[in-house]
Protein backbone atom coordinates (compact mmCIF):
# COMPACT_ATOMS: atom_id res chain seq x y z
CA UNK A 1 0.00 0.00 0.00
CA UNK A 2 1.36 3.41 -0.99
CA UNK A 3 2.11 5.93 1.72
CA UNK A 4 -0.64 8.42 2.58
CA UNK A 5 -0.09 11.70 0.74
CA UNK A 6 -0.89 15.32 1.47
CA UNK A 7 -3.59 15.09 -1.21
CA UNK A 8 -5.12 12.02 0.49
CA UNK A 9 -5.31 13.90 3.79
CA UNK A 10 -6.86 16.94 2.10
CA UNK A 11 -9.40 14.60 0.48
CA UNK A 12 -10.45 12.83 3.69
CA UNK A 13 -10.60 16.17 5.53
CA UNK A 14 -13.06 17.35 2.89
CA UNK A 15 -15.10 14.15 3.20
CA UNK A 16 -15.21 14.62 6.98
CA UNK A 17 -16.12 18.30 6.63
CA UNK A 18 -12.98 19.58 8.28
CA UNK A 19 -11.08 22.59 7.01
CA UNK A 20 -7.33 22.13 7.46
CA UNK A 21 -4.67 24.76 6.88
CA UNK A 22 -1.54 24.07 4.81
CA UNK A 23 0.46 23.86 8.00
CA UNK A 24 -1.96 21.35 9.52
CA UNK A 25 -1.88 19.31 6.31
CA UNK A 26 1.87 18.85 6.66
CA UNK A 27 1.59 17.94 10.34
CA UNK A 28 -1.36 15.55 9.95
CA UNK A 29 0.13 13.85 6.88
CA UNK A 30 3.30 12.98 8.82
CA UNK A 31 1.40 11.82 11.90
CA UNK A 32 -1.12 9.72 9.99
CA UNK A 33 1.68 8.18 7.93
CA UNK A 34 3.41 7.09 11.16
CA UNK A 35 0.25 5.40 12.45
CA UNK A 36 -0.39 3.69 9.12
CA UNK A 37 3.25 2.62 8.95
CA UNK A 38 2.75 0.89 12.30
CA UNK A 39 -0.39 -0.75 10.90
CA UNK A 40 1.69 -2.41 8.19
CA UNK A 41 2.06 -5.44 10.47
CA UNK A 42 -1.70 -5.97 10.15
CA UNK A 43 -1.72 -5.12 6.47
CA UNK A 44 1.07 -7.64 5.80
CA UNK A 45 -0.54 -10.42 7.82
CA UNK A 46 -1.83 -13.39 5.84
CA UNK A 47 -5.24 -13.89 7.42
CA UNK A 48 -6.58 -16.13 4.64
CA UNK A 49 -10.32 -16.50 4.83
CA UNK A 50 -10.69 -15.73 8.53
CA UNK A 51 -14.12 -14.12 8.88
CA UNK A 52 -14.14 -10.46 9.99
CA UNK A 53 -15.52 -9.47 13.40
CA UNK A 54 -17.39 -6.17 13.49
CA UNK A 55 -18.71 -6.62 17.00
CA UNK A 56 -17.91 -8.76 20.06
CA UNK A 57 -21.51 -9.92 20.46
CA UNK A 58 -23.65 -11.73 17.89
CA UNK A 59 -25.87 -8.77 17.00
CA UNK A 60 -29.53 -9.40 16.60
CA UNK A 61 -32.33 -7.01 15.95
CA UNK A 62 -33.97 -5.98 19.20
CA UNK A 63 -37.61 -4.92 19.05
CA UNK A 64 -39.68 -3.24 21.70
CA UNK A 65 -43.43 -3.66 22.08
CA UNK A 66 -45.26 -1.36 19.68
CA UNK A 67 -46.76 0.80 22.40
CA UNK A 68 -47.03 4.55 22.72
CA UNK A 69 -44.75 5.87 25.44
CA UNK A 70 -43.29 9.23 26.36
CA UNK A 71 -40.33 10.48 24.32
CA UNK A 72 -37.94 13.34 24.98
CA UNK A 73 -39.73 16.61 25.64
CA UNK A 74 -39.69 18.73 22.47
CA UNK A 75 -39.27 22.03 24.27
CA UNK A 76 -36.39 20.65 26.31
CA UNK A 77 -34.63 19.33 23.20
CA UNK A 78 -35.13 22.53 21.19
CA UNK A 79 -33.97 24.62 24.15
CA UNK A 80 -30.42 23.27 23.69
CA UNK A 81 -30.36 23.54 19.88
CA UNK A 82 -28.16 26.21 18.27
CA UNK A 83 -31.03 27.73 16.23
CA UNK A 84 -34.77 27.09 16.22
CA UNK A 85 -37.62 28.32 14.06
CA UNK A 86 -41.30 27.29 14.32
CA UNK A 87 -40.52 24.42 16.72
CA UNK A 88 -37.91 23.02 14.33
CA UNK A 89 -34.13 23.00 14.04
CA UNK A 90 -33.12 25.91 11.81
CA UNK A 91 -30.13 25.83 9.43
CA UNK A 92 -28.68 28.24 6.85
CA UNK A 93 -29.71 27.73 3.19
CA UNK A 94 -28.79 24.22 2.10
CA UNK A 95 -27.88 24.99 -1.51
CA UNK A 96 -26.81 28.58 -1.02
CA UNK A 97 -30.03 30.09 -2.31
CA UNK A 98 -31.67 33.04 -0.57
CA UNK A 99 -34.53 31.95 1.68
Amino acid sequence: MAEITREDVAHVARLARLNVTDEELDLFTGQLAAVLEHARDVEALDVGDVPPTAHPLPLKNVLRPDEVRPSLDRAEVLAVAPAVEDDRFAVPPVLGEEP
Partner: protein
Amino acid sequence: MTAREIVAAVQSGETTATAVLDEHLARIRERDGELHAFNLVTEDAARADAAAVDAGDRTGPLAGVPIALKDNLCTRGVPTTCSSRILEGWKPPYDATVVSRLRAAGAVVVGKTNLDEFAMGSSTENSAFGPTRNPHDPSRVPGGSSGGSAAAVAAGFAPVALGSDTGGSIRQPAALCGVVGVKPTYGAVSRYGLVAFASSLDQIGPFTQTVADAALVLEVIAGHDPMDSTSIDRPAPSLLDALEESVDGLRVGVVRELLGEGIADDVRRRTEAAADALAAAGAKVEEASVPAAIYGLSAYYLIAPAEASSNLARYDGVRYGVRVDGPTTGDMMEATRTAGFGAEVKRRIMLGTYALSAGYYDAYYGKAQQVRTLIIRDFQAAYEQFDVLLSPTSPTTAFPLGAKTEDPLAMYMNDVCTIPSNLSGDPAMSIPYGTGDDGLPVGVQVMAPALGEQVMFRAAAALERSLS
Protein backbone atom coordinates in the same frame (compact mmCIF):
# COMPACT_ATOMS: atom_id res chain seq x y z
CA MET B 1 -13.24 6.16 53.75
CA THR B 2 -14.24 3.56 51.19
CA ALA B 3 -17.75 3.46 49.73
CA ARG B 4 -18.63 0.43 51.84
CA GLU B 5 -17.42 2.18 55.00
CA ILE B 6 -19.46 5.28 54.13
CA VAL B 7 -22.62 3.25 53.52
CA ALA B 8 -22.18 1.46 56.87
CA ALA B 9 -21.36 4.63 58.81
CA VAL B 10 -24.29 6.59 57.35
CA GLN B 11 -26.66 3.72 57.95
CA SER B 12 -25.59 3.25 61.57
CA GLY B 13 -25.86 6.96 62.27
CA GLU B 14 -22.17 7.23 63.04
CA THR B 15 -22.01 10.03 60.47
CA THR B 16 -24.32 11.73 57.98
CA ALA B 17 -24.28 11.87 54.19
CA THR B 18 -23.94 15.64 54.50
CA ALA B 19 -20.86 15.36 56.71
CA VAL B 20 -19.31 12.85 54.29
CA LEU B 21 -20.04 15.17 51.36
CA ASP B 22 -18.54 18.15 53.23
CA GLU B 23 -15.27 16.29 53.77
CA HIS B 24 -14.99 15.49 50.07
CA LEU B 25 -15.97 19.00 48.95
CA ALA B 26 -13.32 20.41 51.29
CA ARG B 27 -10.65 18.24 49.67
CA ILE B 28 -11.85 19.30 46.21
CA ARG B 29 -11.64 22.98 47.22
CA GLU B 30 -8.20 22.47 48.66
CA ARG B 31 -6.58 20.66 45.74
CA ASP B 32 -8.62 20.60 42.54
CA GLY B 33 -7.35 24.01 41.49
CA GLU B 34 -4.00 22.29 41.06
CA LEU B 35 -5.15 18.89 39.75
CA HIS B 36 -8.17 19.82 37.59
CA ALA B 37 -9.91 16.47 37.97
CA PHE B 38 -13.31 18.13 37.58
CA ASN B 39 -14.84 20.07 34.70
CA LEU B 40 -17.77 20.90 36.96
CA VAL B 41 -18.56 20.41 40.66
CA THR B 42 -22.32 20.19 41.24
CA GLU B 43 -22.21 21.29 44.86
CA ASP B 44 -25.80 22.50 45.28
CA ALA B 45 -27.39 19.40 43.76
CA ALA B 46 -25.03 17.19 45.78
CA ARG B 47 -26.02 18.95 49.01
CA ALA B 48 -29.71 18.45 48.23
CA ASP B 49 -29.11 14.75 47.46
CA ALA B 50 -27.10 14.22 50.64
CA ALA B 51 -29.76 15.99 52.72
CA ALA B 52 -32.38 13.68 51.21
CA VAL B 53 -30.31 10.66 52.27
CA ASP B 54 -30.08 12.08 55.79
CA ALA B 55 -33.83 12.70 55.84
CA GLY B 56 -34.42 9.04 54.94
CA ASP B 57 -35.90 9.94 51.56
CA ARG B 58 -33.10 8.32 49.56
CA THR B 59 -31.93 4.82 50.42
CA GLY B 60 -30.11 2.00 48.66
CA PRO B 61 -26.81 0.12 48.49
CA LEU B 62 -24.86 3.35 47.78
CA ALA B 63 -26.79 5.69 50.09
CA GLY B 64 -24.62 8.71 50.85
CA VAL B 65 -21.65 7.74 48.66
CA PRO B 66 -20.15 10.69 46.73
CA ILE B 67 -19.62 9.76 43.07
CA ALA B 68 -17.84 11.57 40.24
CA LEU B 69 -18.92 11.03 36.63
CA LYS B 70 -16.75 11.20 33.53
CA ASP B 71 -18.00 14.16 31.51
CA ASN B 72 -19.09 11.97 28.58
CA LEU B 73 -21.96 10.52 30.63
CA CYS B 74 -25.20 12.39 30.04
CA THR B 75 -26.70 14.13 33.06
CA ARG B 76 -30.09 15.74 32.63
CA GLY B 77 -29.91 19.51 32.80
CA VAL B 78 -26.22 19.43 33.79
CA PRO B 79 -23.55 20.37 31.22
CA THR B 80 -21.95 17.35 29.51
CA THR B 81 -19.00 18.49 27.42
CA CYS B 82 -16.84 15.45 26.57
CA SER B 83 -14.09 18.06 27.23
CA SER B 84 -14.77 19.39 23.74
CA ARG B 85 -15.51 22.94 22.60
CA ILE B 86 -18.15 21.51 20.27
CA LEU B 87 -20.38 20.50 23.22
CA GLU B 88 -19.50 23.38 25.53
CA GLY B 89 -22.58 24.43 27.49
CA TRP B 90 -24.75 21.59 26.20
CA LYS B 91 -27.24 20.27 28.76
CA PRO B 92 -28.57 16.80 27.89
CA PRO B 93 -32.34 16.32 28.11
CA TYR B 94 -31.89 12.89 29.72
CA ASP B 95 -29.75 10.89 32.17
CA ALA B 96 -27.51 7.99 31.14
CA THR B 97 -28.83 4.67 32.48
CA VAL B 98 -25.80 4.32 34.78
CA VAL B 99 -26.55 7.74 36.26
CA SER B 100 -30.19 6.83 36.91
CA ARG B 101 -29.13 3.57 38.53
CA LEU B 102 -26.52 5.20 40.78
CA ARG B 103 -29.00 7.83 41.86
CA ALA B 104 -31.67 5.20 42.52
CA ALA B 105 -29.10 3.41 44.72
CA GLY B 106 -28.70 6.55 46.86
CA ALA B 107 -25.39 7.83 45.46
CA VAL B 108 -24.58 11.54 45.62
CA VAL B 109 -23.19 12.88 42.32
CA VAL B 110 -20.51 15.49 43.08
CA GLY B 111 -19.52 16.50 39.56
CA LYS B 112 -18.27 15.80 36.05
CA THR B 113 -14.65 14.84 35.49
CA ASN B 114 -12.15 15.85 32.83
CA LEU B 115 -11.18 13.55 29.94
CA ASP B 116 -9.31 13.52 26.69
CA GLU B 117 -11.69 15.11 24.18
CA PHE B 118 -14.36 12.53 23.28
CA ALA B 119 -12.29 9.96 25.24
CA MET B 120 -9.56 9.99 22.58
CA GLY B 121 -6.23 9.87 24.37
CA SER B 122 -4.15 8.25 27.08
CA SER B 123 -3.09 11.23 29.20
CA THR B 124 -6.08 13.62 29.54
CA GLU B 125 -3.90 16.24 27.82
CA ASN B 126 -6.29 16.31 24.86
CA SER B 127 -8.98 18.06 26.93
CA ALA B 128 -10.12 21.38 25.48
CA PHE B 129 -10.24 22.68 29.05
CA GLY B 130 -6.65 21.88 30.04
CA PRO B 131 -4.97 18.74 31.38
CA THR B 132 -5.59 16.87 34.62
CA ARG B 133 -2.55 16.23 36.81
CA ASN B 134 -1.58 13.05 38.66
CA PRO B 135 -2.23 13.39 42.43
CA HIS B 136 0.91 11.32 43.17
CA ASP B 137 3.10 13.77 41.21
CA PRO B 138 1.43 16.81 39.62
CA SER B 139 4.20 17.10 37.02
CA ARG B 140 2.95 13.80 35.57
CA VAL B 141 -0.15 12.79 33.64
CA PRO B 142 -2.95 10.80 35.31
CA GLY B 143 -3.34 8.63 32.20
CA GLY B 144 -6.47 8.74 30.11
CA SER B 145 -8.86 9.12 28.72
CA SER B 146 -10.72 8.94 32.07
CA GLY B 147 -7.87 10.79 33.82
CA GLY B 148 -10.19 13.10 35.76
CA SER B 149 -12.12 10.19 37.27
CA ALA B 150 -8.92 8.32 38.21
CA ALA B 151 -7.38 11.44 39.75
CA ALA B 152 -10.61 12.22 41.64
CA VAL B 153 -10.55 8.83 43.38
CA ALA B 154 -6.78 8.92 43.98
CA ALA B 155 -6.99 12.42 45.51
CA GLY B 156 -9.89 11.50 47.79
CA PHE B 157 -12.34 13.82 46.00
CA ALA B 158 -14.80 10.91 45.75
CA PRO B 159 -14.52 7.25 46.78
CA VAL B 160 -16.11 6.21 43.47
CA ALA B 161 -15.99 7.54 39.92
CA LEU B 162 -17.30 6.21 36.63
CA GLY B 163 -15.31 6.18 33.42
CA SER B 164 -15.55 4.66 29.98
CA ASP B 165 -13.04 2.26 28.42
CA THR B 166 -12.67 1.90 24.64
CA GLY B 167 -9.01 0.80 24.50
CA GLY B 168 -7.93 1.08 28.13
CA SER B 169 -9.41 4.42 29.18
CA ILE B 170 -10.43 3.13 32.62
CA ARG B 171 -7.65 0.63 33.33
CA GLN B 172 -4.63 2.68 32.20
CA PRO B 173 -5.45 5.82 34.26
CA ALA B 174 -6.38 3.56 37.21
CA ALA B 175 -2.89 2.03 36.98
CA LEU B 176 -1.15 5.41 36.70
CA CYS B 177 -3.12 6.86 39.64
CA GLY B 178 -2.91 3.80 41.89
CA VAL B 179 -6.61 2.95 42.08
CA VAL B 180 -8.82 0.03 41.01
CA GLY B 181 -10.41 0.32 37.54
CA VAL B 182 -12.77 -2.15 35.85
CA LYS B 183 -13.82 -2.61 32.22
CA PRO B 184 -16.77 -5.01 32.37
CA THR B 185 -17.75 -7.49 29.66
CA TYR B 186 -19.02 -5.69 26.55
CA GLY B 187 -22.81 -5.46 26.99
CA ALA B 188 -22.76 -5.97 30.78
CA VAL B 189 -23.35 -2.27 31.49
CA SER B 190 -25.78 -0.18 29.45
CA ARG B 191 -24.20 2.40 27.15
CA TYR B 192 -27.41 4.45 26.94
CA GLY B 193 -26.37 8.04 27.59
CA LEU B 194 -22.65 7.42 27.12
CA VAL B 195 -21.51 9.71 24.31
CA ALA B 196 -20.34 7.24 21.65
CA PHE B 197 -16.70 7.01 20.57
CA ALA B 198 -16.32 3.49 19.09
CA SER B 199 -19.58 1.68 19.72
CA SER B 200 -18.31 -1.91 19.38
CA LEU B 201 -15.60 -1.25 22.00
CA ASP B 202 -16.99 1.29 24.52
CA GLN B 203 -17.89 0.07 28.03
CA ILE B 204 -18.63 1.99 31.24
CA GLY B 205 -17.01 0.91 34.50
CA PRO B 206 -15.99 2.05 38.00
CA PHE B 207 -12.89 3.52 39.62
CA THR B 208 -12.55 2.83 43.34
CA GLN B 209 -9.95 2.55 46.09
CA THR B 210 -10.74 -1.11 46.76
CA VAL B 211 -11.78 -4.22 44.85
CA ALA B 212 -14.85 -4.62 47.09
CA ASP B 213 -16.07 -1.10 46.25
CA ALA B 214 -15.69 -1.86 42.54
CA ALA B 215 -17.79 -5.00 43.01
CA LEU B 216 -20.44 -3.03 44.90
CA VAL B 217 -20.70 -0.34 42.19
CA LEU B 218 -20.69 -2.83 39.33
CA GLU B 219 -23.54 -4.76 40.96
CA VAL B 220 -25.56 -1.51 40.89
CA ILE B 221 -24.80 -0.38 37.32
CA ALA B 222 -24.71 -3.76 35.50
CA GLY B 223 -27.75 -5.57 34.15
CA HIS B 224 -30.05 -5.49 31.17
CA ASP B 225 -31.36 -2.18 29.81
CA PRO B 226 -33.95 -2.08 27.04
CA MET B 227 -32.55 1.32 25.98
CA ASP B 228 -29.30 -0.28 24.74
CA SER B 229 -29.77 -2.87 22.00
CA THR B 230 -26.34 -4.38 22.80
CA SER B 231 -27.16 -4.82 26.49
CA ILE B 232 -26.86 -8.48 27.52
CA ASP B 233 -30.24 -9.79 28.60
CA ARG B 234 -29.35 -11.65 31.77
CA PRO B 235 -29.20 -10.74 35.45
CA ALA B 236 -26.09 -8.97 36.74
CA PRO B 237 -23.80 -11.42 38.55
CA SER B 238 -23.32 -11.24 42.30
CA LEU B 239 -19.74 -10.09 42.80
CA LEU B 240 -19.31 -9.28 46.50
CA ASP B 241 -19.66 -12.97 47.41
CA ALA B 242 -16.82 -13.88 45.03
CA LEU B 243 -14.34 -11.70 46.91
CA GLU B 244 -13.94 -14.05 49.86
CA GLU B 245 -13.45 -17.17 47.74
CA SER B 246 -9.99 -18.73 47.79
CA VAL B 247 -7.86 -18.82 44.66
CA ASP B 248 -6.58 -22.26 45.63
CA GLY B 249 -6.36 -24.24 42.39
CA LEU B 250 -7.26 -21.23 40.21
CA ARG B 251 -5.49 -21.49 36.83
CA VAL B 252 -3.66 -18.22 36.16
CA GLY B 253 -1.86 -17.52 32.87
CA VAL B 254 0.74 -14.77 32.57
CA VAL B 255 0.50 -13.52 28.99
CA ARG B 256 3.94 -13.81 27.39
CA GLU B 257 3.19 -11.41 24.52
CA LEU B 258 2.23 -8.61 26.94
CA LEU B 259 5.44 -8.83 28.95
CA GLY B 260 7.84 -8.35 26.06
CA GLU B 261 9.44 -5.40 24.33
CA GLY B 262 8.30 -1.97 25.46
CA ILE B 263 7.33 -3.01 28.99
CA ALA B 264 9.47 -1.19 31.58
CA ASP B 265 11.55 -3.43 33.83
CA ASP B 266 9.97 -2.19 37.07
CA VAL B 267 6.47 -2.78 35.67
CA ARG B 268 7.47 -6.29 34.57
CA ARG B 269 8.84 -7.04 38.05
CA ARG B 270 5.63 -5.94 39.74
CA THR B 271 3.61 -8.13 37.37
CA GLU B 272 5.82 -11.09 38.21
CA ALA B 273 5.41 -10.30 41.91
CA ALA B 274 1.64 -10.42 41.43
CA ALA B 275 1.92 -13.79 39.72
CA ASP B 276 4.08 -15.05 42.60
CA ALA B 277 1.55 -13.78 45.14
CA LEU B 278 -1.27 -15.68 43.46
CA ALA B 279 0.89 -18.80 43.35
CA ALA B 280 1.62 -18.38 47.07
CA ALA B 281 -2.14 -18.21 47.67
CA GLY B 282 -2.56 -21.57 45.99
CA ALA B 283 -3.20 -20.63 42.36
CA LYS B 284 -1.61 -22.65 39.56
CA VAL B 285 0.40 -20.03 37.67
CA GLU B 286 1.89 -20.69 34.23
CA GLU B 287 2.93 -18.78 31.15
CA ALA B 288 0.09 -18.23 28.66
CA SER B 289 0.19 -17.23 25.02
CA VAL B 290 -2.20 -14.99 23.08
CA PRO B 291 -0.15 -14.70 19.87
CA ALA B 292 -2.44 -12.32 17.96
CA ALA B 293 -2.42 -9.83 20.87
CA ILE B 294 0.66 -8.18 19.36
CA TYR B 295 -1.50 -7.05 16.43
CA GLY B 296 -4.11 -5.56 18.75
CA LEU B 297 -2.71 -2.03 18.73
CA SER B 298 -2.62 -1.78 14.93
CA ALA B 299 -6.08 -3.30 14.54
CA TYR B 300 -7.50 -1.02 17.22
CA TYR B 301 -6.10 2.16 15.67
CA LEU B 302 -7.91 1.29 12.43
CA ILE B 303 -11.19 0.02 13.94
CA ALA B 304 -11.70 2.66 16.66
CA PRO B 305 -11.07 5.68 14.37
CA ALA B 306 -13.30 4.11 11.69
CA GLU B 307 -16.18 3.85 14.15
CA ALA B 308 -15.40 7.29 15.57
CA SER B 309 -15.45 8.94 12.14
CA SER B 310 -18.99 7.67 11.74
CA ASN B 311 -20.14 8.41 15.32
CA LEU B 312 -18.77 11.96 15.32
CA ALA B 313 -20.53 12.85 12.06
CA ARG B 314 -23.44 13.89 14.28
CA TYR B 315 -21.58 16.99 15.52
CA ASP B 316 -22.59 19.26 12.68
CA GLY B 317 -24.02 22.28 14.49
CA VAL B 318 -27.63 21.40 13.66
CA ARG B 319 -29.30 19.85 16.70
CA TYR B 320 -27.05 20.50 19.70
CA GLY B 321 -23.78 21.96 20.78
CA VAL B 322 -21.87 24.84 19.31
CA ARG B 323 -22.56 26.32 15.87
CA VAL B 324 -20.24 28.51 13.82
CA ASP B 325 -22.36 30.13 11.15
CA GLY B 326 -21.72 30.14 7.42
CA PRO B 327 -23.55 31.17 4.25
CA THR B 328 -24.78 27.63 3.55
CA THR B 329 -25.49 24.60 5.73
CA GLY B 330 -22.39 22.87 4.33
CA ASP B 331 -20.23 25.87 5.18
CA MET B 332 -21.77 26.05 8.65
CA MET B 333 -21.06 22.36 9.30
CA GLU B 334 -17.45 22.65 8.18
CA ALA B 335 -16.84 25.82 10.18
CA THR B 336 -18.46 24.27 13.26
CA ARG B 337 -16.43 21.06 13.12
CA THR B 338 -13.20 22.87 12.29
CA ALA B 339 -13.56 25.22 15.26
CA GLY B 340 -15.17 22.69 17.61
CA PHE B 341 -12.85 19.67 17.42
CA GLY B 342 -9.29 19.52 18.76
CA ALA B 343 -6.29 18.11 16.87
CA GLU B 344 -6.47 14.51 18.16
CA VAL B 345 -10.17 14.21 17.35
CA LYS B 346 -9.50 15.55 13.84
CA ARG B 347 -6.62 13.07 13.40
CA ARG B 348 -8.82 10.14 14.36
CA ILE B 349 -11.73 11.26 12.21
CA MET B 350 -9.40 11.59 9.22
CA LEU B 351 -7.67 8.28 9.94
CA GLY B 352 -11.04 6.52 10.21
CA THR B 353 -12.38 8.18 7.08
CA TYR B 354 -9.24 7.06 5.25
CA ALA B 355 -9.44 3.47 6.56
CA LEU B 356 -13.05 3.25 5.40
CA SER B 357 -12.59 4.95 2.03
CA ALA B 358 -12.82 3.23 -1.34
CA GLY B 359 -9.60 1.43 -2.27
CA TYR B 360 -8.34 1.19 1.32
CA TYR B 361 -11.26 -0.48 3.09
CA ASP B 362 -10.10 -4.07 2.46
CA ALA B 363 -6.45 -3.40 3.29
CA TYR B 364 -7.14 -1.53 6.51
CA TYR B 365 -10.59 -1.81 8.09
CA GLY B 366 -11.37 -5.24 6.61
CA LYS B 367 -8.01 -6.65 7.62
CA ALA B 368 -8.29 -5.19 11.12
CA GLN B 369 -11.66 -6.90 11.55
CA GLN B 370 -10.10 -10.22 10.57
CA VAL B 371 -7.33 -9.66 13.10
CA ARG B 372 -10.04 -9.02 15.66
CA THR B 373 -11.34 -12.54 14.97
CA LEU B 374 -7.82 -13.95 15.47
CA ILE B 375 -7.50 -12.19 18.83
CA ILE B 376 -10.87 -13.54 19.96
CA ARG B 377 -9.85 -17.08 18.91
CA ASP B 378 -6.51 -16.83 20.72
CA PHE B 379 -8.19 -15.63 23.90
CA GLN B 380 -10.73 -18.46 23.67
CA ALA B 381 -7.92 -20.98 23.33
CA ALA B 382 -6.10 -19.47 26.31
CA TYR B 383 -9.25 -19.57 28.45
CA GLU B 384 -9.55 -23.30 27.80
CA GLN B 385 -6.35 -23.66 29.82
CA PHE B 386 -6.71 -20.76 32.24
CA ASP B 387 -9.42 -19.22 34.43
CA VAL B 388 -7.85 -15.73 34.33
CA LEU B 389 -4.95 -14.07 32.53
CA LEU B 390 -2.45 -11.64 34.03
CA SER B 391 -0.40 -8.83 32.45
CA PRO B 392 0.79 -5.31 33.18
CA THR B 393 -1.94 -2.69 32.71
CA SER B 394 0.32 0.03 31.30
CA PRO B 395 3.86 -0.40 29.91
CA THR B 396 5.22 2.33 32.20
CA THR B 397 4.32 4.36 35.27
CA ALA B 398 2.95 7.90 34.83
CA PHE B 399 5.00 10.00 32.38
CA PRO B 400 5.60 13.78 32.49
CA LEU B 401 3.07 16.15 30.94
CA GLY B 402 4.04 16.98 27.38
CA ALA B 403 6.30 13.95 26.96
CA LYS B 404 4.21 12.34 24.20
CA THR B 405 1.87 15.04 22.92
CA GLU B 406 3.83 15.63 19.70
CA ASP B 407 4.04 11.94 18.81
CA PRO B 408 0.58 10.33 18.56
CA LEU B 409 2.00 6.85 17.90
CA ALA B 410 4.10 6.95 21.10
CA MET B 411 0.94 7.96 22.99
CA TYR B 412 -1.04 5.09 21.42
CA MET B 413 1.57 2.58 22.67
CA ASN B 414 0.28 3.16 26.23
CA ASP B 415 -2.73 1.02 25.37
CA VAL B 416 -0.87 -2.04 24.10
CA CYS B 417 -1.83 -4.26 27.07
CA THR B 418 -5.40 -3.05 27.49
CA ILE B 419 -6.63 -3.00 23.87
CA PRO B 420 -6.90 -6.78 23.32
CA SER B 421 -9.75 -7.13 25.88
CA ASN B 422 -11.72 -4.35 24.16
CA LEU B 423 -11.36 -6.08 20.80
CA SER B 424 -12.50 -9.40 22.30
CA GLY B 425 -15.24 -7.84 24.46
CA ASP B 426 -13.94 -9.65 27.56
CA PRO B 427 -13.79 -8.11 31.05
CA ALA B 428 -10.49 -6.85 32.48
CA MET B 429 -9.48 -4.79 35.49
CA SER B 430 -6.43 -3.02 36.89
CA ILE B 431 -5.32 -3.49 40.50
CA PRO B 432 -2.70 -1.19 42.10
CA TYR B 433 0.27 -3.42 42.85
CA GLY B 434 3.01 -1.44 44.51
CA THR B 435 5.27 1.16 42.94
CA GLY B 436 7.93 1.38 40.26
CA ASP B 437 11.54 2.60 40.58
CA ASP B 438 10.25 6.20 40.51
CA GLY B 439 7.94 5.58 43.46
CA LEU B 440 4.83 5.94 41.26
CA PRO B 441 1.97 3.41 41.21
CA VAL B 442 2.07 0.28 39.04
CA GLY B 443 -1.12 -1.50 37.98
CA VAL B 444 -1.51 -5.17 37.20
CA GLN B 445 -4.24 -6.31 34.84
CA VAL B 446 -6.50 -9.31 35.48
CA MET B 447 -8.41 -10.50 32.39
CA ALA B 448 -11.23 -13.06 32.23
CA PRO B 449 -13.48 -14.59 29.58
CA ALA B 450 -16.77 -12.84 28.65
CA LEU B 451 -19.13 -12.69 31.64
CA GLY B 452 -16.30 -13.98 33.85
CA GLU B 453 -16.51 -11.05 36.27
CA GLN B 454 -16.87 -13.32 39.29
CA VAL B 455 -13.60 -15.17 38.75
CA MET B 456 -11.89 -11.90 37.76
CA PHE B 457 -12.93 -10.26 41.04
CA ARG B 458 -11.90 -13.38 42.95
CA ALA B 459 -8.34 -13.11 41.58
CA ALA B 460 -8.29 -9.33 42.04
CA ALA B 461 -9.34 -9.62 45.69
CA ALA B 462 -6.59 -12.18 46.30
CA LEU B 463 -4.03 -9.79 44.81
CA GLU B 464 -5.28 -6.97 47.00
CA ARG B 465 -5.08 -9.20 50.11
CA SER B 466 -1.51 -10.19 49.23
CA LEU B 467 -0.43 -6.57 49.64
CA SER B 468 -1.99 -6.01 53.05
